């Protein structure tokens, strides 16, 4: 039982087995060591300890009585199980011995803000943390991943902590998974599918309500980015930036914080979200800002950056981002997409400029040029953006009469924004109510289902397009014969007027059945 002093902390090594056969002897030796010196703390190094019985545990308890802050380190899994089962891990600090993993030659499959993910064998991956003292980060990430899983987000949770060189890593089971970045890079024909899945997961994250106090608020971070710019851009621009971020409303829904295609994995036919350490709550604009950076911002000055990071080229990233943004917003209108992108750019540039400056960006010529480039763009886009808030052009609701007011409120907001005349708004309301009621009553009868309502306003010529999508029974309302409006009251049937009113009130009505969905599109020119 050799021992050595480390500062004022005494490290005592435990070896082999400690049981009733030798516990008295071990205890005597420990206390002899302890009585010899002026000791502030005790560390029991269990690296070579293979077994400990209750007699041995009692020895540890007696040490702890004199040194309440003592700890046990380098504990192998078998001994850890014993300490865990007997409640010792809760009574005192017990640190595991970490398995050593070698990542030389392993494929890099993901990279996030604070670590890189490698595949170590067919079924397992390891995330190696950049920060050498990463145990706290690992604990944090495990906590938030568990929380996300409980809240319904499909993710992977690490089951082991390992040593990788001088760094720590956490090990996940990830069978035959490949990242969406890899799919985009090697199977470009799957772009549409990737966009659809990526957007679906984004909506899922954003519809997840997080219990109070469980996650940090990303707006607090964003305020730091905005305040940082005070010394780096003209005063009026800096003030505007800060007031824009301050005005973003509080939101208790989830934000991933680093939602790009390396953090979305396909495992079998299941899509998993990984790299959860930046998980937070907040307004979706902050998520979009990080997405803009990943697909455009970081590589806007030097287009090679994205190739290195994501494996696909700048144009692919740009196209994926814009298509995802359009699908997410539920719009066909490029102008709307670019307007929301501008809002994301405001936050995005502020974030990368600060990040670059804090990571030595000013020390290289390229870094300085890049920062100038981003600054110029930030100032330019600030001139155009008056609010960071946006609304998706899509409402996804249960098809039932009770939701009519919500649908009309959603449309009226958009129409008012677009400066639609009151009378037109009434006509549109009428058409929308008639269509919505039709879907609510017949599409899923006698069951229930959902309907998506998209609203887009186009220019030149100015018109509004409203689209209803449901997955109910195929039904083309336009096939319905128009009622004879010249009949007398006695001859009139009660009902059958709805669709007729829609056709009269709208300038264009189109129906199509596609991918198992009824799609009805209304157009009205201003």
């Amino acid at each position, binding site marked *: 039982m050799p021992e050595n002093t480390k500062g004022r902390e005494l490290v005592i090594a435990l070896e082999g087995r400690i049981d009733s056969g030798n516990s008295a002897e071990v205890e005597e030796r420990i206390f002899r060591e302890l009585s010899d010196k002026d000791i502030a703390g005790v560390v029991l190094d269990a690296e070579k300890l293979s077994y400990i019985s209750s007699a041995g545990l009692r020895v540890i308890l007696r040490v702890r009585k004199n040194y309440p802050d003592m700890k046990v380190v380098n504990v192998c899994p078998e001994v850890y199980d014993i300490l865990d089962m007997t409640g010792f891990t809760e009574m005192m600090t017990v640190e595991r011995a970490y398995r050593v993993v070698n990542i030389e030659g392993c494929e890099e499959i993901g990279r996030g803000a604070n670590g890189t993910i490698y595949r170590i064998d067919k079924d397992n991956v390891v995330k190696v943390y950049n920060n050498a003292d990463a145990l706290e980060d690992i604990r944090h990430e495990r906590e938030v991943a568990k929380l996300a899983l409980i809240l319904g987000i499909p993710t992977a949770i690490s089951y082991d902590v390992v040593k990788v060189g001088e760094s720590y890593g956490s090990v996940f089971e990830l069978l035959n998974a490949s990242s969406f970045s890899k799919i985009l890079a090697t199977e470009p024909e799957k772009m549409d599918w990737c966009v659809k899945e990526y957007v679906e997961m984004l909506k899922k994250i954003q519809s997840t309500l997080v219990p109070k106090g469980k996650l940090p608020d990303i707006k607090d971070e964003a305020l730091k980015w905005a305040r940082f710019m005070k010394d780096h851009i003209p005063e009026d621009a800096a003030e505007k930036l800060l007031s824009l971020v301050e005005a973003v409303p509080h939101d208790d829904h989830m934000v991933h914080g680093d939602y790009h295609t390396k953090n979305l994995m396909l495992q079998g036919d299941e899509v998993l979200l990984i790299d959860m350490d930046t998980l937070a709550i907040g307004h979706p604009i902050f998520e979009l800002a990080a997405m803009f950076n990943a697909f455009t911002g970081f590589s806007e000055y030097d287009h090679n950056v994205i190739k290195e990071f994501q494996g696909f080229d700048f144009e692919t990233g740009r196209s994926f981002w814009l298509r995802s943004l359009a699908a997410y917003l539920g719009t066909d209108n490029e102008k709307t997409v670019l307007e929301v992108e501008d809002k994301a750019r405001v936050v995005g540039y502020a974030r990368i400029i600060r990040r670059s400056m804090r990571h030595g960006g000013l020390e290289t010529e390229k870094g300085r040029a890049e920062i100038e480039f981003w600054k110029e763009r930030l100032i330019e886009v600030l001139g155009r953006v008056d609010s960071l808030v946006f609304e998706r052009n899509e409402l996804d609701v249960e098809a039932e009469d009770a939701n009519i007011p919500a649908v009309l409120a959603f449309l009226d907001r958009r129409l008012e924004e677009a400066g639609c005349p009151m009378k037109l708004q009434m006509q549109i309301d009428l058409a929308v109510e008639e269509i919505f009621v039709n879907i609510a009553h017949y599409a899923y009868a006698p069951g229930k289902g959902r309907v998506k309502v998209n609203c887009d306003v186009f220019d030149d010529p100015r018109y509004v397009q409203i689209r209803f999508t449901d997955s109910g029974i195929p039904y083309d309302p336009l096939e319905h014969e128009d009622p004879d409006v010249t009949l007398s009251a006695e001859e009139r049937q009660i009902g059958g007027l709805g669709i*007729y009113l829609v056709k009269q009130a709208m300038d264009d009505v189109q129906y199509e059945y596609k991918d198992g969905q009824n799609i009805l599109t209304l157009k009205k020119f201003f």
Partner: protein
Amino acid sequence: MLNIIKKEEEGKLLFELEGRLDTITAPDLEKDLMSSLEGISGLLLDFEKLEYISSAGLRVLLSAHKATAGKTEMKIVHVNDIIMEIFETTGFSDILDIE
């Protein structure tokens, strides 16, 4: 939202409607209206404060018209332009007595 103010004068019934007559509110009016028709000598619907009508509202008007036909005079007054256009589009302006 629809506010229904009901008044009775010398056997004549007056309904003042305020707000929207749509899928949500039409059933309320229908219930109120259809249960009040017994024994009245006239029915007046005042649309001065009615902003909007959908086909669900039109159906109530048609039901009331059918129920009163030949027995009671039914009249709609103070109709705004938007609602008038809907009456015209659907031919209701030819059926109903509208002022």
